[in-house]
């Protein structure tokens, strides 16, 4: 039997750990992983006995974002299929974002693009100090679409305007400064740092924690179905452009895209 793409464990305290388990491809997200995450989040949402959820990953990277082989398949889809695919991804981010119990991203390695999306959908983010981050979609002629409501919510419009457009890499300290991370610790202290936060959560009344989480979401403005529709339409539209085709082709041919050559950079 093939290894499971996503592992879910729940300890006797009611602390669930959902682990991305495709270390060999830097935990890149494809349709099967998206489905597995959806199943995991649906399962946890229905459980009264789960008090906190840790989102973790195996291997060197936390998540490298969308699997570009998958993106290449998606490129062959019809516009309707393309949008449906994008909506499914948007729904998984929504499920993570709206899990009724607190969620902690335990970031043991780098996170890029959709991997950053998973981080910003969690309530609390703790990273090992060597982790790097980037919102890389524009390098490929795409845009950070479904993740953008959560990205802007976490790091604010000012930092989003920079990092969504430059696709620059930034380190964990910068990620903490802009609000993407709450804690940065040495790699060997990551377990203990997450456990400290879990310990605090377990001291609190479960229903009032859930009510607080829902209230914060309502106060800042929930990510609505209309927003998911809108962002899915935008990614579906851009995937079909010549620029996105060139971006994908350049990636697979390991060359610079035309717009870089043209710019002489």
């Amino acid at each position, binding site marked *: 039997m093939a290894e499971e793409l996503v592992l879910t464990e729940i300890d006797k305290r009611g602390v669930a750990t959902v682990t991305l388990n495709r270390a060999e491809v830097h935990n890149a997200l494809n349709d099967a992983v998206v489905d597995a995450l959806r199943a995991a989040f649906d399962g946890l949402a229905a459980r009264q006995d789960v008090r906190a959820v840790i989102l973790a990953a195996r291997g060197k990277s936390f998540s490298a974002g969308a699997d570009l082989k998958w993106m290449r398949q998606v490129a062959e889809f019809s516009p309707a299929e393309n949008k449906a695919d994008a909506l499914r991804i948007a729904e998984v981010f929504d499920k993570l974002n709206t899990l009724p119990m607190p969620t902690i991203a335990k970031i043991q390695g780098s996170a890029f693009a959709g991997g950053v999306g998973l981080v910003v959908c969690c309530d609390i983010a703790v990273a090992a100090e060597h982790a790097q981050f980037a919102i890389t979609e524009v390098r490929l002629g795409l845009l*950070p679409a479904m993740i*953008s409501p959560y990205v*802007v919510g976490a790091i*604010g419009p000012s930092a989003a305007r920079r990092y969504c*457009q430059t*696709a*620059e890499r930034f380190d964990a300290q910068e990620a903490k400064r802009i609000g993407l991370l709450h804690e940065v610790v040495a790699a060997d202290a990551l377990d203990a740092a997450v456990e400290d936060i879990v310990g605090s959560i377990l001291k609190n009344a479960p229903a009032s924690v859930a009510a607080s989480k829902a209230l914060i979401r309502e106060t800042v403005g929930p990510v609505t179905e209309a927003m998911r529709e809108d962002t899915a339409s935008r990614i579906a539209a851009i995937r079909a452009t010549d620029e996105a085709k060139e971006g994908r082709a350049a990636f697979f041919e390991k060359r610079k*895209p035309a*717009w870089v050559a043209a710019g002489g950079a």
Partner: protein
Amino acid sequence: MTEPVLLCATDARGVATVTFNRPQVNNAYNADVILGLIEIFGGLATDEAVRLVVLRGNGRHFQAGADLKWLREVSTLTPEENLEVSRNTTNAARGLNEFPKPTIALVHGGCFGGGTGIVAGCDIVIASEDAIFSITEARWGVMAGPIFPQLNAAIGEHNVRRYSLTCERFGAARAREMGLVDEVCAPGGLDATAAPIIDAILAGGPNALRETKRLITDIGKLAVSDALAEKLAQQHARKRQTDEAEEGLKSFVEKRNPNWYPGRG
């Protein structure tokens, strides 16, 4: 022949540089500057060769805000003419904030009043350690309304409440802490600090960047509606024709404290 109040040049890579060019008055803006900004940014938006825009100031300062001598003349215009000035000011700030390509402000020396709105409306802001910021309008009995949407988005309402009410000066480090500035460098280091960021932007697909910026603007609700713009312009114009503004602007010209200042307690 007089020098143009704004300079605009685009290099071979498509990097346009717009330079405030009234160094003799610390690049304070007047009607010519405002209309020039609207015209230049309008042209750059549709110029296919332009990939991004850098904004900077000639002389010792980035931008000292409104030319208060000019503002005093404006306050004596008819209410309709006075309102037209505020409409133009509001639209210049909006146009920069919603400009479809990435914008980078390079700030040295003073950045006051409307200057803070200009940097808040740019995507990326780099300041040298000698930069000084202040939201100065209330000090002169006028108000900063047209730039509040951008300032709120850049530094958050809480910081705007402090700095627009106190008109305190703050340095580059504090500006970075609040999110107004992205990078701080040694004096003279602006170009070197900007170079890798510009290069990172040129590596992104031009269309992807446009779509990404538009999405961040939509998600972050960063665009100012026509109705809000008109309201901001009307408030701005009305405040300028009050007795308080007259006293404030007069105190500037006469280099004395305004009559509402009781002196240090």
